[in-house]
């Protein structure tokens, strides 16, 4: 009776003690002196501005990844009472007193600390000894690069935490599978796998790699289940559905939820507005919404409108004209029509107003009831201030000679007739009788005589010379095959024209638009647009001083300087533990070679190791080597700027491999007792060298204490490392 009570307590206490000790050590190494340095460190300058924007509820678009990671960082700021008032402009800038540095950095640090017990638990679940598990946890604990990365407001440690959590919960689930399917804890771990995966993907798109790996492993396990005759067809179906629910449907739903929260939190207009469509902008508080609120929805004959080019590159601009004409001859000697210039102008201006006119009628006001313009209708566009008609003809455009010039027609009484009829084509129409709507409709204007399409030249340097006031060129594109955003326009400001007289109309054009109804996009429409923008918006790939190529990472040929004390030599670098990195590489190599050897021998029916330890070897390898491969190899195909910290998730998996290989070697290759004890001695010696390296590099990991120049020089173990030494 007593023994029955005693046993489970002792067992659980033992595991917990290990875990508690590891967690405590993790917390100490990650949280110690967290608010030092009180200055902006490396990419904090980047993520910090998003935290500020969250605090102020201002909308932004970040092309580096989905919003969940940013939201978690912002949560830290929210808990610390950050008001968002800090100018994130330069690395090394001192934080002002209103910035709660400690709580901003707390979440990444906690995630980093929890990776240590997670690593331990993963190895235990892979059915390795506690000794090996302890080794893995200690290696993670003493890895300088992981420590540095988790001590600041950066996303990698959170990402690694979720990745490890997903792996661990899948393993737990898989081990429970044999004993108790569909039990409470079975469901718990299965669901947690899905949730952790979606969180990982939500932090950074890199999480997708691990998600795919887990899906593949789950698929493989299920494939084995299909072959197992002890399952009935019905129970197989149930298993399949449960996995589909937890590993696919729940992650997708969670991912949508992140975006929902993101959009719900950020409802004010902000600096990234102009990337989005007018419809999206109008849904944000302030900004465009202030102007467009209450405009009539349907464009009618007689409507006064401004037309925005949908491309928005190199900058957003509106169709524009002014009284100046094209010069008779350009600098290079080509001639023009000498008619009134039509340009695309990047600022709001009264000259951006155009009136939609029915070619068959003279009036420029909206009749009562208004006659809406539909897809396929032919219209004339009258420039509001000069009352000239938008026109294009077979004259080469000023900057793009292969396209037609677009002008406002002036009758010089020479043999050049007005060609001012345009057909309205609504690109995103649902049916062919759709009405042209303000903001929502994306419209092409097809010239009736020449079938050229009105287009803003969207290339860099498309601005006209001095005579065109550096405004952007507008042309009639003859090769109008295919869809390109530069040929599509939407109505942004809109009102029904009331005054037939030119003078009155000018006054009317100058007056602000009236308010009427507001338009709101559904969440899914907003989500698809935002998601599309995040994926396609490409920052010009910039070179960075510390950028590196994927090949440099394995050997740690580069480092990244994160921070330098303004006066002393104290500095923080992203630098890994050299011994760990080297042994991780060796472990991967040994694993691959040994596996190939075993595989070929098994094919010839020679079994070197017992079947169950072979299974163990394969499953452990598929997680750790697989995790390393999927998180590393894709970077060779990426064209964006890469940094050393992109390697950290892959490194974490590789570190997990070291104890796996070590234990396998000691179990199966060291046959005699003497060999075994020698091997253990070697491992101990190797471990102390890991600690020694950790200790040596800890000044540049924590930024304390400050080192003198000769000490720093001594730390430069590789010539390619960039350690900053102050000149006297």
């Amino acid at each position, binding site marked *: 009776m007593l023994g029955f009570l005693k046993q489970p307590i002792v067992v659980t206490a033992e595991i917990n003690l290990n875990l508690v000790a590891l967690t405590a050590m993790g917390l100490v190494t990650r949280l110690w002196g967290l608010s030092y340095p009180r200055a902006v460190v490396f990419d904090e300058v980047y993520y910090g501005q998003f935290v500020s924007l969250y605090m102020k509820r201002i909308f932004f678009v970040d092309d580096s990844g989905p919003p969940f990671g940013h939201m978690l960082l912002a949560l830290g700021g929210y808990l610390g009472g950050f008001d968002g008032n800090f100018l994130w402009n330069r690395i090394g800038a001192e934080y002002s007193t209103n910035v709660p540095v400690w709580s901003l950095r707390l979440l990444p640090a906690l995630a980093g600390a929890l990776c240590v017990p997670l690593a331990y638990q993963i190895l235990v679940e892979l059915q390795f000894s506690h000794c090996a598990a302890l080794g893995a946890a200690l290696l993670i604990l003493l890895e300088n690069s992981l420590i540095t990365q988790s001590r600041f407001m950066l996303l990698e440690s959170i990402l690694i935490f979720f990745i490890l959590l997903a792996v661990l919960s899948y393993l737990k689930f898989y081990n429970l599978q044999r004993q108790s399917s569909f039990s409470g804890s079975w469901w718990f771990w299965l669901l947690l796998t899905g949730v952790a995966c979606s969180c990982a993907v939500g932090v950074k798109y890199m999480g997708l790699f691990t998600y795919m790996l887990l899906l593949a492993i789950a698929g493989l396990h299920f494939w084995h289940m*299909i*072959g197992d*005759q002890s399952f009935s067809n019905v129970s197989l179906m149930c298993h399949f559905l449960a996995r589909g629910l937890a590993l696919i449907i729940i992650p997708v739903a969670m991912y949508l939820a992140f975006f929902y929260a993101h959009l719900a939190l950020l409802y004010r207009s902000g600096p990234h507005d102009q990337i989005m469509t007018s419809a999206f902008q109008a849904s944000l508080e302030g900004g465009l919404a202030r102007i467009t609120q209450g405009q009539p929805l349907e464009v009618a004959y007689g409507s006064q409108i401004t037309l925005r080019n949908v491309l928005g590159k190199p900058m957003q601009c509106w169709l524009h004209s002014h009284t100046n004409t094209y010069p008779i001859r350009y600098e290079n000697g080509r001639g023009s029509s000498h008619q009134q210039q039509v340009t695309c102008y990047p600022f709001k201006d009264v000259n951006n107003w155009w009136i939609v006119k029915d070619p068959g009628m003279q009036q420029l006001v909206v009749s009562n009831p208004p006659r809406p313009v539909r897809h396929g209708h032919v219209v004339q566009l009258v420039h509001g201030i000069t009352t000239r008609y938008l026109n294009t003809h077979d004259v080469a455009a000023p900057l793009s000679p292969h396209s037609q010039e677009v002008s406002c027609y002036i009758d010089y009484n020479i043999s050049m007739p007005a060609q001012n009829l345009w057909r309205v084509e609504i690109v995103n129409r649902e049916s062919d009788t759709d009405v042209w709507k303000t903001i929502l409709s994306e419209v092409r204007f097809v010239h009736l005589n020449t079938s050229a399409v009105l287009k803003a030249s969207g*290339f860099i*340097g498309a601005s006209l010379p001095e005579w065109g006031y550096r405004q952007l060129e507008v042309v009639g594109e003859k090769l109008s*095959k295919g869809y390109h955003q530069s040929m599509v326009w939407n109505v942004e400001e809109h009102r029904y024209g009331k005054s037939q007289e030119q003078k009155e109309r000018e006054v009317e054009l100058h007056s602000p638009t009236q308010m009427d109804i507001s338009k709101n996009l559904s969440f899914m429409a907003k989500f698809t647009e935002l998601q599309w923008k995040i994926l396609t918006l490409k920052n010009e790939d910039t*070179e960075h001083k510390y950028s590196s190529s994927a090949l440099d990472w394995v050997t740690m040929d580069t480092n990244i300087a994160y921070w330098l004390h303004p006066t002393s030599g104290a500095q923080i670098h992203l630098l890994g533990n050299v011994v760990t990195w080297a042994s991780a590489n060796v472990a991967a190599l040994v694993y691959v070679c040994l596996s190939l050897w075993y595989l070929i021998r098994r094919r010839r029916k020679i079994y070197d190791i017992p079947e169950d330890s072979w299974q163990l070897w394969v499953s452990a390898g598929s997680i750790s080597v697989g995790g390393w491969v999927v998180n590393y190899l894709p970077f060779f195909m990426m064209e964006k700027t890469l940094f050393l910290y992109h390697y950290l998730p892959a490194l974490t998996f590789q570190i997990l491999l070291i104890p796996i290989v070590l234990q396998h070697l000691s179990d199966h290759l060291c046959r005699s007792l003497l060999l075994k004890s020698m091997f253990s001695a070697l491992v101990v010696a190797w471990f102390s060298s890991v600690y020694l390296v950790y200790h040596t590099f800890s000044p540049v990991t924590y930024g304390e204490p400050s080192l003198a120049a000769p000490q720093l020089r001594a730390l430069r173990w590789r010539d390619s490392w960039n350690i900053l030494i102050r000149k006297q």
Partner: protein
Amino acid sequence: WDETHFGKMGSYYINRTFFFDVHPPLGKMLIGLAGYLSGYDGTFPFQKPGDRYEHHNYMGMRGFCAFLGSCLVPFAYLTVLELSKSLPAALLTAFILIFDTGCITLSQYILLDPILMFFLMGAVLSMVKCNSCADRPFSASWWFWLSLTGVNLAGATGVKFVGLFVVLLVGLNTIYDLWDLLGNLSLSLVMFGKHLLARVLCLILLPLALYTAVFAVHFTVLNKSGPGDGFFSSAFQSQLIGNNLHNVSVPEHLAYGSVVTMKNLRMAGGYLHSHWHLYPEGIGARQQQVTAYLHKDLNNMWIIKKHDSDAADLSDPSSPVEFVRHGDIIRLEHKETSRNLHSHQHEAPLTRKHFQVTGYGINGTGDSNDFWRIEVVGRKSGKLIKVLRSQVRLTHVATGCILGSSGKTLPKWGWEQVEVTCTPYLKETPNSLWNFEDHINPKLPNISLDVLKPSFAEILLESHMVMIRGNSGLKPKDNEVTSKPWHWPINYQGLRFSGVNETDYRVYLLGNPVIWWLNLITIGLYLLIAVSMAVALKRGVQLTSELKELSRVVLRGGGQIMLGWLLHYLPFFMMGRVLYFHHYFPAMLFSSMLTGKYW
């Protein structure tokens, strides 16, 4: 349309002028050969699509391509017959290919695609044939088909790099084959070694040798200087007859007052170039543009001057020659415009984090931002600088940045030449290294430069590097009609081959919609059938022997074709270069074969 490219390249072979293209040379060589045999004299200019051939004899080249294109039908027929052992299936496949309009269009003109597809189908056919000979290993027919596979592989890769996918397909098939043999315990290890060796010999060594031979022929045939010179390094150019570096003799060491051209060491790097045009408003300072230009031009000439003395005393013939030494501070004056190479802390036009490089000053007088320190890689200060052989770095004295070429193409205002910047990141890359190519100084004795001759391996490596660069550099231009990979299988949009609006007859590349949609449906259906069969087998459902045979055909033969389709289609999703509709055609062949089999 693309006949302008490949026809022109055929002409180059006949005229033996060197050119550069992003594809390996075999296809164009065959076109050139066909033209040569049919009496085409290589004089037609091939300037723009729609030009008339008039009296030129082009039928040979077209006929050759069309012949190879029509070979696809029997190839596909035989392959399907071999895989499914059913005559109707094979006939259906053949009919599909005969009546597909896209295939017809594509093989009627002087293009690389019919040649590529010929080799590709040849490789698949011989692979399948070889598999069916597997029960009689090392027999004559086995050897024949195996080595034919290797030959076709070399051919496919030699025409276009897309051929690498079929190499992959054959490779995977071979590995699977070997794995099977390894598991066969009745086979001794020695026998297995023989199998392995035979495959290595026929599928790796033989294609490699042929492929290299193709390049060897390419370089021996093209021994005259031509339009492709500028893409290659100075050493390479010295091999070409008619190039100004061929058998040239220049002064060996660089001296002040010399007129030089500087070439960037990046693969396909250009010459340092400047011209009268200014940078447009809003892009740095409005000073004269400095670019890298791939072609030889008078505007590539620069004069080396001392930073503190003027031009006048250097041109004086009586003054002694003074050599430029490592570590000297110099000024580079552009010969045509007399402006100095200049840099300042304005951002460069495209690479925003670099500094802009301009031409500045009038008649050689500028300011202290015109001073550059010249350094040779891996040498100590005070050493002389050798023409052609020294790798030189130019450091801007005032800002400490290094002159480099970013490899990005400037927009129209810069004449689509390559951007030149001054990079503040002091990394050692070929982007920021230059060598001196031409060197004119009447006061110095000339020496011959035969020492530069590169070995064949170096030439091979270099031309591949240049091709890969060129391939990834094919970025879509504004307004060009390109298509996305997902457009292809559904026949979403064709490709206009020739005939602008004015002419009456046009050629438009478009597949036969019935066939293409059928193919697409088949792929879906195949996946469904294959998965259900695999599950059924895994569940251990008892099948009749007839069904078992069927499932073997479905899973093994169908799997091979399906894999071929995937390998020729999916990679395009990951490519950054310009993609055209015709890239889908190899994949389409596979899907047609699949269709043929299942209906």
